[in-house]
Structure formats: C-alpha cells, structure tokens
C-alpha cells in the first residue's frame, strides 16, 4: 500500500479496500517507528489526523469522494493550520498554535485529505540542508550521514521514507527542488502567483511559492490541482481559470525542444551528477526530443542578486516578531528596546539573524541604490535571459544541485558554500518561472541525483507531461531507501 500512487490509493479508498483511518494509522505507525531516527516531522497530532480520517471515511461511504479524499498528506511546518502548532522551524514560534488555516491547508481540507503532521524545515525556510531548524537536523533516508537538503528537508525525507503519501513544500530559492533532488523524489514549484501565499509564513514575498512533493509526476499533478487557484487574500494571487494539471500527462514527446544552458554544465558541477543528467537527456532523445544549446549569460549573478533581495524582504517580513502579540518573549528585560533585542536574539537562530542583518544593511540609508536597486535591475536581466531562451526551446533542463547530498555538518560554518548549493535553482525564482526536480539516478556515493526541468510561465502541465514520460521509461523514481521497513 505504501508504494502505491495517489491514484491507486484513491481507488483503494473508494472501493473500500482500505479505510482512511486504516491508511492514516499505517502512516502514524511508520512515523512512530522511523521518525525518531529521521526527524522528518516536528509535530504529530494523531487524534486530530484520525478524526479527519473518520470524516473522510464518511464522505467515502456517502460516495462524495474527491481524488484526494482520505489520503494522508504531510504539511510543511510553514503553513498555518488551525489548532496545530506551527513553528516554521523556529524557537520564535515554538509554542505558536495557528489560529487560522493557510489557503493551502483549507484547499487540502476541502479536498478531503488528511493532515498527517507538520514537517521539519530550515528555520523560516532559510537554509539548504535543514540544519538551521530549531528542532534538530533531518537525516537523509538514503544515508543517515547526509543532509536531506532544504529548506523543505523534512517533507522530502518523509516522502522518500514513505512516512506520508505526499507532502507540501515551499520554494524561495530552491527549497522544493533541491531537497527533492537530494532525497530522490519529485517536486514542483509552480509559476509565482499560482498557489496562494495566505497563511504561509513569509520569508521573501516576491519569491516564495508553495508546491507539492511526491514520488511521481502524476502524483504531483493531482496535488497541484488541489493547491492552486485564485485567493483574494493574497494580493499576488493570479486570477486564472482552474486547470487540470494532469491533462497532458500522456502526450508523446516527439518534437520537444530541450534547451541545455551551457552555464549549468560549467565548472563546479560534480562529474557523477553531470553523468546522470546527460544520461537523462539521452533518454529524452530516445523519447523523440531534440537538444538545443542555449545560454543564460546572467545566471551566474543569480546567487549574489538573491542574497540581496531575499534578505531585504526577509528583514522586513521578520520585523513582525517583536515578542508583543505572539511568539517568543525573553524571560527577562528592562525597557522596550531591550525586550525587542533579547526576544529576537533568543528567538532567532544564527542563519536567520545573518539574513536579517544582510537585509537591514542593504536597505539602510546610503546603500539602497548600490545593492537593492542594482539587484532588482539584474533580476530583470536574468528574467530576460529566460525569455530569450524560450524563443529557441520549449523547456530547459539541467542539474538541480551541483552535487549529491553533502554530509551533515560539512558546510555548517561556511554560509557562502551553503548558498552556492542553490546555484541552479535560484534564477528560476527570480524570474517567477515554474521549476521541478525529478529523480535521475544515483551518484558515485549511492546518493540520489535530480534532473531539473524549467518551463515557461504556466507550463506546469507540459512539465508534468515531460516528467511523466521519463518516469514511464525509467524506474529511478520507484527506488526506495534501505532500512525503512519495505
């Protein structure tokens, strides 16, 4: 059952082969057994999840089931879920019980899905290894010495270790795609504005976008159907007609033009990753695709631009954590300023403080033009590179991450090294384009490799088609880690 696709699970539930309560309990038992070592979840509320499963069983019995009714989904702990502790991986929100549902959560609730628990993440989604979480590091299920990636590391780990049927993530600079690659699963960050950010704790608002993480492209299509849609409570939510993201899954790929940016295969890319990506490209050629060499000349600037813009937005967003209305307040203080300074010093971890300081600096008097404005101008150059590229090709492919999962602690003391692990993913967020990662084999150390697929605006259905056809022809996505009780 735990290796079934969401389609298969949905059918099994609808014909009564298994109940939602049984399925939810199955996952809760697996979490109890394997989560102590993996630490993929921050919060489990078994009784709340089972209560939701009972309601799903009633809907199933009444013949009112939707595709995801009764299916247990792990929610990244960045989404407010009413009555659930929602920490965003931070001591600042360690005891915060969300008083309302994020749009993503209410979409899943309305679809009849079960909230299985809240997954671990880098603090305020700032990190690429899940090591900045206040709630401890997550282990990569393929190798417990390796990081799962981040910031949606708990979600990626939970999907790979079969501790949920599927999961949600968020992606500001690669936080869905990079952990998906490092844990050998599939994940998609849709076009900016497609999924409402309401109730999703803000990091960098012009870049943040939620998306699904699962074991296959056809699972992602079902999840995206539920997560997307206009929401007036997010001022950047786009008013578009509802799509069926699975509509093109079975289209043949003959004639597809795949662009390979030379910058994504230059110095810095590990050989074993390059090998897997090239093998995947060869598979696409067999499926009828043609290859176009392209260039994204400004993509080398994506990391520096991102580390101006994202911290600038973060320093503003995180100014709300003042210890007054909710969240952590220092136990001892004198005046108001000291209350702010101590609450924030004790409530935030090192990486979050670092980014708040970068952001505060680049927005401060005398530096705004040189940093923030310059970064916004280069952001446009980066977006224009993609516009030009999509005149020559239908989709862009390359590695998701320059290496397979690195070891826990390996990059801990060097923030710049850590930032460079998102070198291929960040430009996509700056442009607002959709991007995904799918499993493309294993590196020389046996750790998974991800293939990144970048589409034009609103090309999610096409990207899922491209991923699905590859997954029909290969079995990388069906592989599972050892020692997870399969």
């Amino acid at each position, binding site marked *: 059952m735990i290796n079934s696709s969401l389609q298969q699970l949905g059918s099994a539930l609808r014909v009564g082969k298994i109940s939602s309560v049984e399925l939810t309990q199955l996952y809760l038992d697996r979490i109890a057994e394997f989560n102590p070592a993996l630490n993929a979840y921050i919060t489990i509320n078994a009784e709340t999840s089972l209560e939701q499963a009972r309601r799903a069983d009633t809907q199933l019995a009444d013949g009112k089931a939707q595709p995801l009714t009764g299916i247990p989904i792990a929610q990244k702990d960045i989404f407010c879920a009413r009555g659930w502790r929602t920490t965003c991986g931070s001591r600042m929100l360690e005891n915060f019980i969300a008083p309302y549902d994020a749009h993503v959560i209410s979409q899943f609730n309305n679809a009849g899905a079960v909230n299985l628990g809240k997954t671990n993440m880098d603090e305020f989604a700032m990190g690429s290894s899940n090591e900045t979480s206040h709630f401890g590091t997550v282990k990569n299920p393929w190798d417990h010495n390796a990081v799962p990636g981040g910031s949606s590391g708990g979600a990626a780990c939970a999907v790979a270790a079969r501790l949920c049927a599927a999961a949600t993530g968020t992606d500001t600079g690669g936080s869905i795609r990079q952990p998906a690659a490092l844990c050998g699963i599939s994940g998609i960050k849709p076009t900016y504005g497609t999924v409402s950010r309401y109730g999703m704790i803000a990091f960098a608002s012009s870049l943040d976008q939620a998306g699904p993480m699962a074991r296959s492209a056809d699972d992602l299509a079902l999840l995206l159907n539920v997560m997307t849609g206009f929401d007036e409570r997010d001022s950047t939510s786009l008013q578009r007609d509802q799509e069926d993201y699975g509509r093109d899954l079975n289209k043949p790929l003959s004639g597809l033009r795949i662009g390979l940016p030379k910058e994504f295969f230059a110095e810095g890319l590990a050989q074993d990753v390059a090998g897997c990506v090239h093998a995947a490209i060869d598979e696409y050629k067999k499926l009828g695709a043609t290859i176009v060499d392209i260039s994204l000349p400004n993509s080398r600037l994506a990391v520096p631009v991102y580390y101006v813009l994202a911290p600038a937005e973060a320093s503003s967003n995180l100014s709300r954590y003042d210890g007054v*209305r909710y969240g952590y307040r220092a136990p001892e203080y004198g005046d108001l300023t000291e209350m702010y300074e101590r609450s924030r010093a004790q409530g935030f971890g090192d990486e979050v403080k670092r980014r708040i300081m970068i952001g505060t600096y680049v927005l401060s008097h005398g530096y705004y033009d040189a940093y923030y404005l310059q970064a916004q101008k280069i952001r446009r150059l980066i977006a224009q590179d993609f516009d030009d590229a999509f005149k020559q090709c239908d989709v862009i492919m390359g590695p998701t991450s320059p290496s397979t999962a690195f070891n826990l602690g390996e990059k801990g003391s060097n923030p710049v090294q850590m930032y460079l692990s998102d070198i291929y993913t960040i430009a996509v967020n*700056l442009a607002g384009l959709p991007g995904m990662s799918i499993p493309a084999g294993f590196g020389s150390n046996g750790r998974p490799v991800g293939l990144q697929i970048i589409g034009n605006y609103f090309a999610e259905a096409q990207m899922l088609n491209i991923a699905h056809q590859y997954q029909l022809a290969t079995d990388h996505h069906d592989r599972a880690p050892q020692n997870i009780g399969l």
Partner: protein
Amino acid sequence: MSLTKEDVRKVASLARLGMTETEIETAREQLSGIFDLIAEMQAVDTKGITPMSHAQDVTQRLREDVVTEADQRELFQSLAPQYQGSPQIEAGLYLVPQVIE
C-alpha cells in the same frame, strides 16, 4: 568587502538583534564573506534597466474599502507571550514595558 565591528553593531541595533561582542566579531567575518559574493553584481552595467520588483508584471489588485475580517480579538490575544507566568494582555490590549513617563 570588509565590514567593521561598528557597521555590524549599527545593523544589529537597527534590526533590534541583541548581540555579544563575540557574536559581533563572528557576524563581521561571515557578513564580509557574503558581501564579497554580493560584490560580483557591482560591475554589471544596468543603465536604462527598469528594476524588477516582482515576479509577475501585473498591477496590484484593489478591493472595496470594507471590513472583511471578523473580530477575533480573544482568540488572537490567547496567543500573547507570557511574562513571569502571566499573559501580557489587559483590557483587550497588549502589555509592554512603559515607554512614556
């Protein structure tokens, strides 16, 4: 780019982040490294380029100026931080140290 400890102290104060001298020195080293990375963009000629402030070139939506939020004061105040064992609220307001003599 090399930041001074004074730069870091000023930024920490603007951001209301209390820091010890040791933390300021560590932050100074790490932030200097990050600003070296950021400096790569200074050489780019961006004359005539319009800054891109958002991922989509769309105008922000407007809405009618009407109350849409329900009053949930009690629910929200139940989340207020504690100080010495008691929630820092009174008469529907939040309590902070006195700022006006």
